[in-house]
């Protein structure tokens, strides 16, 4: 076991025996991944500013309202990333249960103690600062699942080890999140969980069964519209957002106008017109609409490519990781970024029905950004133990 090493700081002298026997065991972190993270963060901050200033000026009288806060969190987040990247990620195994307990506690707490009754997602902390337990839940599920998988890998095909524990944890967390309600977060957590179970070795037949169940659910929603309230109208607005252009379809339509206006090369950075109070919350879930309008299809493709590279690099780190826990951590955290990105862009482009989901590195949100960067720090920490080629 390597727990002894986790207490060490990066610059601490290593035990000679380890150095000799495993020279690459604690290499430097994966620079490509770091550069990709920082590049996306940089572009994200610039685009956030571009997308938000008109909105900020109108509603807060200060064009820099969002960007200054986001910058502050970015600085904190990058520091967290660097610090976390130097910490041995194995320490997380110790905290896995604690993390799960704490997360469940906070998820219950937020149902009773929140800033907003219609969406009980934020626990007030100090002043305008809030904490979103769902953000923690995303991390928790990755850590707990990675722990369980590395612990029980050989027995994963057995549902007692490979299915029910995962389903229980996922089910409880998902249930608590649905109660908030936080549908998009739930979907994200389920996606991450399922991906980790799949990679972790759960028997494929369960996925087939789950798939059937999903198809059944969709059929139920379509043929018994009253079974799930609002689902049908949401679907309708998805298929034809113009049916209610000033109501439920407004956000989607405005987003499509923005994306469409971008064309191939975009209207130029800073020149989005849709961000001028047409697009609701352009600093948040719909920041990518502004990106598309200003940078065009070319710019959007480049940014998507950066995300793809990040995911690829994350998976590469996972594959070359020497232990399963680190591997699963990297896979889980990278998947989280990838899925969230895909879902966000799918929403703004009306590929899937509108559900509130933010874009990693781009959307405004302090907790989320700090958490994201810290998680990227964990991936970087994993990379130090993998055999990925270092430049």
């Amino acid at each position: 076991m390597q727990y002894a090493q986790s207490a060490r700081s990066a610059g601490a002298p290593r035990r000679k025996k380890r150095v000799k026997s495993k020279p690459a065991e604690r290499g430097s972190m994966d620079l490509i991944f770091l550069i990709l993270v920082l590049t996306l963060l940089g572009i994200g901050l610039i685009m956030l500013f571009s997308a938000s200033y008109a909105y900020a000026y109108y509603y807060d009288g200060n064009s820099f309202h969002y960007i200054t806060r986001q910058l502050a969190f970015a600085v904190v987040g990058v520091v967290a990333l660097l610090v976390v990247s130097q910490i041995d990620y194995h320490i997380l195994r110790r905290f896995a249960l604690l993390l799960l307990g704490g997360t469940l506690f906070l998820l219950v707490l937020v149902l009773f103690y929140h800033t907003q009754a219609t969406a009980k997602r934020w626990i007030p902390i100090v002043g305008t600062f809030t904490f979103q337990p769902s953000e923690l839940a995303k991390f928790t599920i990755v850590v707990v699942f990675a722990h369980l998988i590395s612990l029980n890998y050989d027995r994963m095909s057995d549902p007692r080890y490979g299915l029910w524990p995962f389903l229980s944890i996922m089910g409880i967390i998902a249930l608590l999140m649905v109660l908030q309600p936080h549908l998009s977060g739930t979907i994200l957590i389920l996606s991450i969980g399922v991906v980790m179970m799949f990679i972790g070795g759960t028997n494929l037949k369960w996925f087939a069964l789950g798939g059937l169940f999903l198809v059944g659910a969709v059929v139920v929603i379509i043929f018994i519209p009253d079974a799930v309230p609002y689902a049908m109208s949401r679907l309708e607005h998805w298929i034809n957002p113009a049916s209610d252009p000033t109501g439920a379809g407004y956000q989607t339509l405005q987003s499509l106008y923005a994306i469409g206006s971008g064309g191939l090369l975009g209207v130029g950075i800073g020149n989005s017109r849709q961000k001028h109070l047409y697009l609701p919350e352009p600093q948040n879930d719909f920041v990518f609409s502004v990106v598309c309008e200003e940078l065009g299809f070319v710019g959007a493709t480049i940014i998507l490519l950066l995300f793809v590279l990040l995911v690829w690099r994350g998976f590469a780190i996972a594959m070359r990781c020497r232990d399963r826990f680190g591997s699963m951590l990297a896979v889980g955290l990278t998947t989280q970024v990838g899925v969230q990105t895909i879902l966000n862009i799918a929403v703004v482009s009306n590929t899937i029905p509108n559900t509130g989901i933010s874009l990693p590195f781009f959307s405004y949100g302090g907790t989320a950004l700090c958490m994201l960067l810290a998680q990227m720090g964990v991936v970087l920490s994993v990379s130090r133990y993998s055999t990925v080629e270092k430049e």
Partner: protein
Amino acid sequence: MAKTPTYQMKGRMMVVLAGMIILGFGIVLHQLFSIQILQGEEYQQIALDQQMRSTRIGAKRGTIYDTNGKALATSADVSSVCVAPGMIDDDEERKNVTAMLVKMLGVDEALVAKKLDKKNSLYEVVKTKVEKPVTDELMQQVLENGLQGRIFLEGDTRRYYPYGNFAATVLGFTNADNDGAYGLESYYNKTLAGTPGRTLAIRDSKGQPMSLQYEETQPAQDGNSLVLTIDETIQHYLEKNLETAVDEHKVGDRTVGIVMDVETGAILAMSTKPDFDPNNPTEIIDKNLLQALEEAKPVITAIAAGQLWYDYNAATDRKFLSGPAYDTLIKNAKYLNKVMGLNTIYALIDQKNEEGGLTQEAQEAAYRKALQNAQYAQWRNKAVSDPYEPGSVFKIITAAGALESHAVTENSTFNCIGYIEVADKTQHCHIWSSQHQGHGVQTLEDAVRNSCNPAFIQIGQLMGSRLFSEYFSNFGLTELTGIDMPGEASGLYHKVENMGIAELSSSSFGQTFTITPLQMITAANAAVNGGKLMQPYIVKQVVDKDGNVVSATQPVVKRQVISKDISDKMQLMLEQVVANGSGRQAQIPGYRVGGKTGTSEKIGTRNLDGSENTKNILSFYGFAPIDNPKVACLVVLDEPDLINAYGSTVAAPVVGSILADVLPYMGIEPQYTQEQLEETTTSTPNVTDKDIHDAQSILRIAGLKYRQVGSGTTVLRQVPGYQEPIPKDATVVLYTEENVVDGKVLVPNVVGMTAGQANKEITNAGLNYAMMGSGIEGTSSPVIAQNPLAGIEVEKGTIVTVEFAESAPAE
């Protein structure tokens, strides 16, 4: 030692990675491609449609200038005050906005409340045409109270008529949208209005400009300006005299005056009085119309109350108004039919009977209709829109046509025995009623001078209906004059195939057909200007905003109607009318004036009680100078409140006064006869108790000037008094109001001065200068005495007689 990931894990990782990239990123990328590249333009268009706001840039309306460049109608920037209820945060702010608008603009609180109730609106107009100082103060208040964006201004323009109630029926006016609604404003609306421009600008969803400045401007093309042939000074002379005439003779149906350039057909002045103030065209200022409205009110009430109804005689298919209110409201009504005709009254009675009464709304609607009729009546330009029977003025045309067609010659004679039989009916000459005899044997000139109807009946008959109709038509009386003004009407006349002896006879002295005053003056001008029928015009030039001439009107000769030779004869004949005939009161010393009087009955028009309208139309056409006519003036008084009045006594002095003002102004110098020059003093004629225009013509013919004090229409007192000796060219002060003093002055001391010095001193003091004794002009003999003495307070106009020493002062 931890276990490394198995191949199965790595394999499944590859599957997830590939799935995520291909299914996840692939699908959204494909979707972006579809939105941005395939449907990009479509979405872009929709986005632009919602982002682009098109704003109208108003074009500045052109100015209307008089012939010398004085602005008669001009536009100035004003603002519309608007509110954006959608920007108002709370009730407190709503209260502030309301209070401010009510206080600053004097608008109705309920109106503001109604506008502010449209809570999502960002644009509600509260008041239009608000002028500069008010808007400045309002915006200051808006700033101080932090209400920017809630109350804002929108640019607009407003039309101003600096001279107010002046040339109103000619100029017309504009409506709230700055479009010409009447008069030249309407006729030349396209020219004046220009083309509005458009600004296409990007706006955020709240309608505010975005930080990025995208603006595409299509500039407005300002309207062109009109330079009229109207001369403000001449127009002023005309209007002053018409206004006096309206008051003097209590003219019932307005008075028309046209001053025209005889050679070119250019309108130098044109007016119908009373008219209106184009700055506020809906306000009724005609006293008769105001009275008519006052008469209409109780009629509506009486109908509603069942006090006025009509009886129907089925046998004759006629209706008769009846009821207790009939005598007081209908029989005594003086002007009611100007705003409410019989048919309207019948309809209102029908409505009352059908609906079992008249609601308050119905009564108000009936009154509004009457008010509207009054407005239309005062806006009407009678000079071009109201045909009338020209009466004897038309004899000019008959005489000219008869000469030109050789139906008669200068030497033809016509006998008048005081009446003439036409188609078994006796037509009396106007002389019959006073003298019970005829004019006797007259030449054509005599007949014109005497305005003898029997003679003209004979002349008409000598021409025959074919020739008469030919000249009637040649003089332009069967066609529109083609003047560049709206609403030109054509009259009714006998077509040649329907013209029997009776119609021919009455037509030849100007009755039983109608033409417009403009047609009359244009035709008469053709008779005296060498025979050319001109197309009258009122716009001399169209100029752009920089003053460049866009187009200029050239005088148009429609045709040669009579020869120059005949025209010359007409000039001399018409001079005799003024020199020795019915037009004497139009004489102006120093000028050879020609003209013709006209009196016509309004035959066939009836009053509301069914009685015949016995009112007359009195007119006079005058022109000068005789040998080279430059200017002509026609004045038509419709329904003066006089019985047995003639155009000679009423209209001629008005035209005389106008021409006496206009001729010197136009630079036509008086040319006195030797006799006139030698006569240096005269005796002051009596003009007390006379109408202003009579008094003026008497004084004018006596070679005196006059100045009116007070705004009455009858001379109450004159200074100097009757029969006081007065030097020619002196000014007689006419007092037309009691207790009005023109001011008293102290008689200056002129003893010791020369004649010239003394004259100047006395005249400057507002007094009249008269010489006594044998002082000879040109010598420097000093004044040795004066009366009244220096230092005495006397009324202005008083004669100061000065006495000179003998040529060689005795030692």
